[in-house]
């Protein structure tokens, strides 16, 4: 099986690896040690120390904070229990009229605001745009991903997951 130096994985995930090397990695057998190298790279970049259990976005991770598992932004902002939709704890900016939609989809590129609005979910800590939903008015916010952490660690990675001591922590 393949395995790559951490420096290669770092360049790869940052989009800095030349395409011919990326292509070679994509065409080869998958590197089974990828996940922990990935986590290690992300962990060393964070300004906080909680253990990353699972990245769930470009800037979001599920981390172990004491006895709790929470969603946390790279900047340190915490969104609460990972089993709840982090979007509900975010800031939102909604483009739901011709003017605001036209700012980024001008003229013939626009959608009809009475049929579709653009929802921007923003981190309250660093103002990063974390997700965008395009949905008709009234469509419930989507809970993108609820991982089965226990099965992932125990059965797929063969590593123990830090025990959950209590719901409240």
């Amino acid at each position, binding site marked *: 099986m393949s395995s790559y130096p951490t420096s290669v994985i770092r360049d*790869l*995930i*940052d*989009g800095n*690896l030349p395409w011919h090397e*990326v292509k070679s*990695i*994509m065409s080869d057998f*998958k590197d089974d040690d*990828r*996940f922990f190298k990935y986590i290690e790279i992300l962990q060393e970049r964070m300004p906080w120390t909680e253990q990353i259990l*699972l*990245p*769930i976005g*470009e*800037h979001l991770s599920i981390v172990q904070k004491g006895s709790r598992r929470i969603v946390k932004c790279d900047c340190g902002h915490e969104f609460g229990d990972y089993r709840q939709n982090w979007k*509900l*704890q975010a*800031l*939102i*900016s*909604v483009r739901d009229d011709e003017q605001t939609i036209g700012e*980024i*989809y*001008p*003229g*013939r*590129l*626009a959608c*009809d605001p*009475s*049929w*579709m609005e*653009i929802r*921007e*979910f*923003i981190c*309250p800590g*660093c*103002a*990063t*745009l*974390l*997700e*965008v939903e*395009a*949905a*008709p*008015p*009234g*469509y*419930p*916010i*989507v809970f*993108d*991903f*609820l*991982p*089965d952490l226990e099965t992932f660690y125990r059965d*797929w990675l063969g590593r123990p997951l830090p025990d959950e001591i209590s719901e409240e922590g």
Partner: protein
Amino acid sequence: MAQPTTPKTQGVPKQTQRVPPGSPVVQPSTLQERLQQNERQFAEKGCYAGITDLTLREDDPIKYESLHTKLRSMVVSAREMARRISASPGVREVGEMVVALYTPEGDAISLSTGIMVHVHTTSRFIKWMIQNGYEKDPGIRPGDIFANNDAFIGTVQVPDVMDVVPIFHDGQLAGWAGAVCHELEVGGITPGGDVYLAAERFTEGLFVCAEKVGANDELRRDYIIRCERNLRMPIYWILDEKAKVAACLEVREKLKELIDEVGIEFYTRACKEFIEEGRRAQLNRMRQIAVPGRYRGHTFYGHLVKGKPGVLAIANENRLYAIPLEMEIDKDGVISLDFEGTGSWGYHSMNCTPAGMDGGLFVTLTQHLNYDGKVNDGAWLATRMNLPPGTWTNPDRHTVATATSWALLLPAFGIFQRLLSRAFLSRGFKEEVFVGQVNSPMVEMGGISQYGKLFGCALFECAAAGSGALGIKDGLDTAYVGWNPESDMGNVEIWELAIPMLYLGRTITPDSGGAGKYRGGAAFTSMWLVHNTPELILATSEHSARVFDNAGLCGGYPAPTAQRHYAVRDSNVRELGAQRECLPHSLGPDPHSTHLERLVGGRHEEVEGPYIAAPLKSGDLFAHAYNGGGGYGDPIEREPQLIVRDVENGYVTPELAGALHVVALELDRQTDRWTVDREATKQRREQFRRDRLRKAVPVSRWIERQRQRILDRDLVDEVKNMYGDCMQLSSRFKDEFRSFWSLPSDFEL
């Protein structure tokens, strides 16, 4: 014979759909019994055809792998050979063809490149014939040729015409060779293959319903006559038929030689092991690069036909479709897709059968998970799909039209690609993250050709849309569609031979890719001068109106896919040419006006959604825009130098570079080169973040305000109707909708 009513996959895992565990054991003597036995064994043992051990692979791996490589080589070379027989630029130029080899029971063993979506739909076709007693009547004999384009039996849409021939070895059925071509003309109510105006099956064109169309290796003359008399452009269909038969016969003869070489017992066992190995590889791949759990996503599609010419009263309504998708990855790596919450089928051509949904699933699996090793029906066996009865994914009436099923199918499986990508991202395989495919609206036409004859054609340059972004780089510009990984738009000169239109331009469409740290691939726009014809009927398809039918990922924006069509009738373009004035070659970079309006005189038309109108004629102009892909990541994290390249090459306008990517660009008018002011960009982006925080509100507050809007039912009719439809079909959606907005338990829309 069984009636083609409600298919059997709905609502249950397809692995257990037909024969429950514990059914009495039947010693297989007929093909039908062998099929039942396979299904029973799968239900009981969870492995393909009772193959619990890959003994041939273990005992003689060289012979085993060598056989697989030879099979793969056979189908690939047969496709390349057959493409040269076809007259259709869709097959010859764009490669809208696939060839595959099947077991006697109809499971795919090996497949060529091309439109792999049809590998599993052909499997459905073969199984349907077996299940419906074809062994007895009309009989399955050496030299027979069977054809089908009925999506309720096994294809995606009416233009996807498939042919299969049985392969006998020493008097025993050893398998099937199959080939599919996408036909450019099917004789429907509107010309072309996708027949956008078809409201029911009865206007979709020429159907061949699991029919024996040939014997003794020859297509029947009466079948050819039927094609000649019912199609606008029979040469495409008929020569494609000959190409497919040639491909199948080539595979058959080569396979017989191969079986003589390895022995029928080895061959038969090895094929079963190939499929079982494919199933296991799929599960292993999931455990290797994904994360178990529940994933959700959605997209939407706007159907705008009300009042357009030719629309029947029964179909005369605009609709908004919700396409929600939930994906569960379980501890074994099995993927379950659930389309509960989507809308009902309708009197339009965009419905899809379970066979078509299987095709969409299969082609996605082969591109994102099962792309190496044994690519066959094994991957499909490791997945489940819930297609709620009565929805567009599983119409409960076989007279429903499906000619444009890609309109909803492509957005639906674009969600699947995004959901898988969330799993890849979590696992660290960012290079596999893909924001997904988009719809690729097609221009179809008929009338009088430039040669003065009746004609019909689907312009397949649509097979080169922009792709969604990747997690580490931009999407592909004008180079990807989901249904054919060998995406190709074809040469302008070849299309000009086939249609009475001359290209004034094919141009990258500015701002057509979704914005993001990595932007979606850009699309292109074509502009034509109608040429040498008194009557050109145009009908476009798969064009979402008013909503975007794709999405971004991780802060990326969707691509703008609700575009319009532009035509100019009685234009003065010839006078402009004679006077050496500027001609329009594209719509131009200004989204508020077009080069047509600015440069050309005549009667201007701007049509929202699909273009269905009175015929055009020589001297008229027409423009059609394809779709770009969704973006990945926050656009203000995009490397400024990449935006310089985007602007200089026309992928992004300076206006949106400023508005979305927040960069400080400067144009040197003497050199016509752009540069970026990095310090100013940094400051602008910091200010932009502060502005974001100032303008945004907590989601909880927004929900409060929106809740009142829902209670007041302050929504346009199409949106209200969409919710009412989804609620009627899904109590789960209804409960979740009420719960999310804290609505009364009896709230309806």
